[in-house]
């Protein structure tokens, strides 16, 4: 059952299909949604734009029933509705396609769709189901083979299945969360056509994205979120990149201090060199394509980009967690392509991940024990039969003094706050005079004090000749700390500058894919 057709006008004379009024949600320490008002009309594609952490995901999850708003209302055709669970959302005609698709790989396309059909008969009628699928898929150009197993079809086709699921469950509002992240260019075009057809039939579509091109090409209206607030809404006709980028990123970067570099020239050999490194994509990850990167001693190379454009893969490749399908990795001039993590660490590579709890610490072990994990051999005595915890303690305390951290050695790691945990990880990684540090979202989720402390630690390391790869979503941090800045988009490096040569607008544009050749990547 599709909604009544509207004219091609994006704003119909009726009221909005879905309206959010004053929706507010906060988590401990962070205001994820701040009194957001939003109107979505039938027959429009409404783009929701914003950086990571701007609150797009949270807002949509509230709309879809995963979270409960602290304040505010959701109105369906003008009347308030209560959405406490995804079931309620579905009953209200709201459907969402997530980034990690909700499909069962060993089931066929038809079975996956059947699972979500609201009026499925007790005895399945495969022919009938197939007929329904084919009818809708032909109408909206969402062609898939109903008999194919989901594990055998491409990600683009899997996405089509997700959309078909929604259409066949009588959804009237479709929320698409970063759908083009995993699509090839021609698949992106196909998706735009699908969205256009749906729009003409009166469906409302919310497109969550950070890509400027998509926004400007296929949306009717654009809302920009920043730090949980609605920064602005405009018609497509009124929009251009500069205005949108200005809304997305903090306009004025006050207090921007560019650290004076003590001009050590590039006469030194690079610590790390990646030559044409390409990786293989795992599921919904992003593959790196032809990365060329050099990191010299005593410099911080900042990596800007919206999360999900290859940052995780870049870190993993340098550390040794991920294999290079093509290309080479050189450490201090030696070929270390596809060598083990242990080799990299023994050579002085340190890693500070974005999620210290799940990626770098063993929760039930004490801080002291966690400290020794990267260097167990060094602290082992009597051939491994005992550990010299005093030595660990001494090293840790020395580094702590140098960095100005305080650390509770005997507390279990899981009892530490996020900030303290990150401090612990930084402490550990800096303790053994690393020569190369990979810092991934160093200050994400940290309170101000901890963030500053972490940044200072990095600067201190740089002063002593360490090379650092700093990945961050905080442009201010990147501009302040980096000696060189690169921008990752779609698994490629799309820009490389010195911070003083550029500004946030240019970086912001590159982060959102502007200026990239149409059809080259997505």
């Amino acid at each position: 059952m599709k909604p009544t057709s509207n004219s091609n006008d994006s704003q119909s004379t009726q009221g909005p299909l879905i309206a959010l009024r004053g929706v507010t949600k906060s988590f401990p320490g962070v205001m994820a949604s701040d009194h957001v008002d939003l109107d979505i009309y039938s027959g429009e594609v409404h783009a929701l734009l914003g950086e990571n952490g701007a609150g797009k995901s949270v807002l949509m999850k509230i709309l879809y029933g995963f979270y409960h708003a602290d304040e505010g209302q959701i109105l369906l055709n003008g009347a308030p509705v209560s959405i406490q669970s995804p079931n309620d959302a579905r009953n209200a005609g709201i459907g969402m396609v997530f980034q990690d698709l909700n499909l069962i790989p060993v089931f066929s396309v038809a079975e996956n769709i059947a699972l979500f059909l609201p009026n499925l008969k007790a005895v399945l009628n495969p022919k009938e189901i197939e007929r329904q699928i084919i009818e809708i898929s032909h109408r909206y150009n969402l062609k898939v083979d109903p008999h194919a197993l989901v594990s055998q079809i491409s990600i683009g086709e899997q996405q089509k299945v997700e959309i078909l699921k929604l259409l066949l469950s009588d959804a009237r509002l479709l929320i698409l969360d970063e759908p083009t992240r995993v699509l090839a260019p021609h698949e992106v075009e196909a998706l735009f056509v699908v969205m256009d057809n749906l729009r003409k039939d009166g469906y409302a579509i919310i497109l969550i994205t950070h890509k400027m091109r998509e926004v400007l090409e296929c949306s009717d209206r654009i809302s920009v979120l920043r730090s949980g607030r609605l920064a602005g809404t405009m018609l497509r006709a009124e929009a251009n990149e500069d205005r949108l980028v200005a809304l997305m990123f903090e306009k004025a970067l006050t207090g921007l201090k560019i650290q004076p570099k003590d001009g050590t020239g590039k006469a030194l050999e690079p610590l790390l060199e990646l030559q044409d490194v390409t990786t293989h994509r795992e599921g919904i990850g992003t593959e790196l394509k032809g990365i060329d990167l050099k990191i010299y001693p005593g410099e911080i190379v900042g990596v800007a980009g919206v999360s999900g454009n290859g940052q995780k893969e870049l870190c993993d490749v340098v550390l040794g967690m991920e294999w290079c399908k093509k290309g080479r990795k050189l450490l201090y001039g030696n070929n270390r392509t596809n060598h083990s993590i242990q080799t990299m660490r023994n050579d002085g590579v340190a890693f500070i991940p974005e999620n210290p709890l799940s990626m770098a610490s063993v929760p039930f072990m004490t801080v002291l024990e966690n400290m020794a994990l990267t260097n167990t051999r060094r602290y082992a005595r009597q051939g491994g039969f005992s550990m010299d915890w005093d030595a660990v303690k001494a090293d840790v305390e020395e580094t702590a003094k140098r960095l100005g951290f305080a650390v509770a050695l005997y507390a279990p790691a899981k009892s530490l706050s996020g900030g303290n945990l990150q401090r612990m990880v930084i402490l550990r990684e800096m303790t053994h005079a690393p020569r190369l540090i990979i810092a991934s979202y160093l200050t994400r989720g940290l309170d101000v004090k901890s963030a500053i402390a972490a940044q200072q630690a990095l600067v201190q390391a740089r002063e002593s000749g360490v090379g650092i790869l700093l990945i961050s979503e905080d442009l201010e941090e990147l501009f302040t700390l980096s000696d060189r800045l690169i921008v990752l988009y779609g698994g490629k490096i799309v820009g490389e500058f010195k911070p003083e040569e550029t500004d946030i607008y240019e970086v912001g544009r590159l982060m959102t894919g502007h200026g990239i050749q149409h059809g080259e990547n997505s």
Partner: protein
Amino acid sequence: MAKIADMYSKILNDAVRYLLMFLLAFLLFGLILLIFGKDPIQSYKDLFISTLGSTYGFSEVIVAMIPMLITALAVALPWRVGLINIGGEGQLCIGAAFATWGALTFQNLPAWILLPIMIILGMLGGALWAFIPGYLKAIGLVNETIITLLLNSVAPLVVGFLIFGFWHSPMDTVKTANFVPAALLPTFFGTRIHLGLIFGLVLLALFWFVMKYTRWGLEMRAIGGNPQAARRSGISLKGYLIVVMCIGGAAAGLAGMAQVSGFYGVLLLNFSMGLGYMGFLISWLAGGQPLGIFLMSFVVAIIITGGNLLQLTRGLPYAVINILLAITLFVVLARPVFFERKKA
């Protein structure tokens, strides 16, 4: 000071909880006995008197405890790195078979040479049987639980084949000839408690020591606690998975050797009767902790040994004691909440 008080109160809490759980289990079992027309009170009295009331009874409990102690370790060690070794049954079997080969082949050697050979053979057999699932898991191909279960079924068939085909005694096709005295583990003080007890206690102590103090224990605990963090810290996951699985198998194999050499003095078909599974359950109940394993295997041994007497005096088939065992397990697995606990 507050920390020690905390620790004591936690131990007290746990002790009370376990006590209550056992009481609940005994109550339920008593109920079942009643339903079938038996006197529960008398049965319980018999159970405890026969096992704890006499030196002989007590020694029998220890004898029953020995193999389960070791098979529990065979599960607890791999569990520390996240491996589920339910193949103790099969590893036990093959270990016993290897040791038996040694006993039959080197009959003329003196005990102080023969026994160590048998010990090594037993551990080798168990380790080999565990290597297959360990390797397959390390390369990410198959789940070790399924493979160990299948191998459990294969092991007794292989051992049976060896007995029937090559080793059986002239009089009896289901078992080998009795081992020569040199192949028997010595016993203590006229009881049936054999050297296997020392093996078990030594292994237990080693397990505790290694996990707490050594470098490998630290790395293993890291793998078990957060495999991704361990990997990113440079710890070799694959290596540990294979080696630890083999060590677990070796322990089970040792238990098998101890049973045939110390308890039976002969290899017979189906000598195990669930020792491997019992070890799995004990390790599970004890949370993989050495002290817990010691206590749990003792408690289970009491139940099992007591069952013998119930059979004689109460006219109950021996199998009935399994009910008490099972109910105890049910209660512990169901994790009942007895009091309202204030969440810390």
